[in-house]
């Protein structure tokens, strides 16, 4: 149950390998890796800003909710901050549960919340200048589907 915010690039395969290691009672690990897109040449660099002390606490709260809702045994969220080149990983989420459905759904839930409810601000630097990226309508409806009873 760990949140990591880091400037340095990470290797998603290595994170997944370590997360899976030594689990005797975990039937399922699901993971998601988000990569920075070049947007067909519109983005040279993505820049992610966080609010240390709030961003990590909010992610831990969201993941705690997911752990309770889906009965997770463990979870890991690694999120880059600072400047990120297209093709590099921005976010890695892994969830561990007794069975696959809970692991898949919790991973999906975590990503939906990270997209529009975790304190990050994303700026695209490209040939046409600088542009702040705000959550899309799709990001909003994705997260709302977990909130309808």
């Amino acid at each position: 149950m760990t949140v990591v915010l880091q400037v340095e690039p990470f290797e998603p395969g290595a994170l997944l390998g370590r997360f899976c290691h030594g689990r005797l009672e975990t039937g399922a690990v699901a993971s998601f890796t988000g990569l920075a897109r070049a947007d067909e040449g519109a983005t040279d660099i993505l820049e992610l800003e966080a609010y240390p002390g709030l961003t990590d606490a909010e992610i831990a709260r969201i993941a705690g909710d997911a752990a309770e809702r889906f009965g997770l045994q463990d979870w890991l969220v690694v999120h880059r901050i600072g400047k990120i080149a297209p093709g590099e990983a921005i976010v890695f989420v892994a969830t561990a549960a007794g069975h696959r459905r809970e692991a898949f759904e919790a991973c999906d839930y975590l990503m939906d919340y990270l997209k529009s409810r975790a304190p990050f601000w994303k700026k695209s630097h490209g040939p046409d200048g600088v542009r702040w990226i705000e959550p899309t309508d799709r990001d909003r409806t994705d997260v709302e589907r977990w909130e309808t009873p």
Partner: protein
Amino acid sequence: MARVLLFGLLADVAGWREADIPGETLAALRAELGKDEDLGQALARPGVQVAVDRVIVRGEAALTAASEVAFMPPMSGG
């Protein structure tokens, strides 16, 4: 007085990220910040959230000189 932090687009609009701003309440702080018309408009946009001492608050909050008040535009991670 409070330590004000601006994030994302708000910092670009204001031209600063961190400053001590006079105000005993969030409303007073907003009025002070609104003297910069562009920043006032940006702060009034839907989806802007406020955190006091790293806790997201809705509505009003009393502030002290030691309070850290963050104004945060719509969030976009992942």
